């Protein structure tokens, strides 16, 4: 059976990748999982300069989910290229580097410095972070800003460019179209949904940052709906994610329109989760006599038009 999928110019050997921020720089999980068995490893989001992130506490569990406010802590692009990328190069998998900036200029520079490195197969651009220059509004919530920043990055890299969409918008299709018009090769969705939790005894927020990003099974129905909407709105390959715990979840995303899927929070619960998802997809294909995984993309049967 053919498990390979095309994400624009990027060819993945199979449709299962890891979600940025849940898999470290890959080496943390290499004890538990053969990274070469994955379609791709998406590393923790990087910025030009290292970032300390938010103060603790940063995470808390909520019903069937978790909130995190890590605040994009990372070691910076330079250290990543020097200390982490050589390790990832040993594996037969696509290395996808997630990155962000806090200005248009930083986005471009980050994309540029990653593009000259050997062993990076694609870039995933996080647009769910605040724009320092424009009053901290989020790059991924205003289609004009999204278009501008993706255009700038598109000019700075020859690598396949995946834009990771924020779900914290009124209509994700509008942002998806802006990213597509600006030259994105693919879209990944969804990032976490902004939420919060309060300790009623102390009357204080549970997270030091007050708000955080919700992930895990709790967000899967929302993610699935947004993938389906985006699939019907733009003609780009999609990487679907949001609460995928097993292969059934992954196949749902593909039927809704995702070409590939990312396993995120599940890594924390079962470090072998991405491989388990892949095995389950293979089993599903065998049981349903599906020769190639790309055939099930968007295969949800419905009598209604979106």
């Amino acid at each position, binding site marked *: 059976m053919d498990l390979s999928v095309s994400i624009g110019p990027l060819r993945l050997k199979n449709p299962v990748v890891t979600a940025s921020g849940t898999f470290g720089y890959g080496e943390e999980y290499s004890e538990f999982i053969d990274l070469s068995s994955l379609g791709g490893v998406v590393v923790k989001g990087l910025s030009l300069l290292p970032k300390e992130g938010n103060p603790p506490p*940063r*995470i808390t569990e909520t019903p069937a989910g978790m909130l995190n406010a890590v605040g994009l802590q990372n070691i910076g692009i330079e250290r990543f290229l020097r200390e982490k990328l050589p390790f990832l190069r040993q594996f037969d998998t696509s290395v996808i580097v997630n990155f962000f900036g806090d200005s248009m200029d930083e986005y471009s520079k980050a994309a540029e410095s990653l593009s000259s490195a050997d062993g990076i197969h694609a870039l995933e651009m996080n647009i769910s972070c605040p724009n320092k220059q424009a009053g901290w509004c989020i790059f991924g919530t205003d289609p004009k800003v999204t278009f501008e920043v993706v255009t700038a990055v598109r000019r700075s890299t020859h690598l396949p460019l995946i834009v990771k969409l924020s779900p914290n918008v009124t209509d994700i299709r509008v942002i998806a179209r802006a990213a597509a018009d600006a030259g994105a090769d693919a879209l990944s969705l969804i990032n976490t949904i902004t939420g919060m939790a309060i300790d009623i005894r102390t009357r204080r927020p549970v997270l030091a940052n007050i708000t955080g990003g919700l992930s895990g099974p709790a967000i899967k129905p929302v993610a699935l709906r947004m993938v389906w909407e985006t699939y019907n709105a733009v003609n780009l390959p999609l990487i679907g994610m949001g609460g995928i715990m097993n292969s059934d979840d992954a196949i749902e995303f593909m039927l809704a329109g995702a070409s590939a899927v990312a396993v995120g929070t599940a890594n*924390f619960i079962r470090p072998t989760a991405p491989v388990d998802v892949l095995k389950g997809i293979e089993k599903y294909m065998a049981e349903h006599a599906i020769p190639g995984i790309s055939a099930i993309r968007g295969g949800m049967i419905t009598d209604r038009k979106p």
Partner: protein
Amino acid sequence: MNLIRYFKARISENRQLNGEHNLLTLVPLTGINEPEPGQFYMTGTGACNYDPLLKRPFSLFRRKNNSLQILYRIKGRGTSLISGLGEGAIVDMLGPLGNSYPMPAHNETPLIIAGGIGIAPLFSLAERLAGRAYIFYGARTRDELFFLAELKVFAKGLFISTDDGSYGEKGAIIAVLNDFLTRHSSPVTRHLIYACGPAPMFESLWNVVRGTGIKTYVTLEENMACGIGACLGCVVNTGDGHKSVCKEGPVFLINDILHITG
């Protein structure tokens, strides 16, 4: 690739010690890496309704025969659900994780300071250092002091205090430690402290050891998701930036943790 640190274990006992504390005895179903005192395990129930979703970190309390023991306080939803698991239930374990307690040199006198459930990571250290360590153990009340008979056997000297005076000295355990240090300090004695307890205990301990040159290790606790340094959810602010409690800890030098308030 090697799955020795990701294993299933069978609960052989989930014994209630009092209304709030349980001793969980687990028998790993496969071979494991031997844990060092101070290390911990992420423990999950594998609940198919995702409640709890994440594993919970627990220090190794004791390695006994073929089992691992965890002493825990029922505090939130996760520990409450785990307390409901009975004999025969299978749990998902990741570990041993984190660093461990550096062992004392021959000329160092180890002092073990436990506040409440802080005894959990220190018990196996006390066992390892049997006959060498002075143990200081404080709790709110008599009912919250556990395994005193064993600790008495392990300790070179055992000092107990309770907030309500129901057992041992009345008052904070750090006051007892302070007395001890005043009486036992000499140019030839080199003390080494291992402590675990609530944040206010660490602060009083810092006031005692600060400037004395007594090397002091503390074990920290934080909400965790992955347990292996990937999610960066459990960091603590140190003099050298954010460090992951799960991977660079849970054992830290007190001066790295309390430098900000100090």
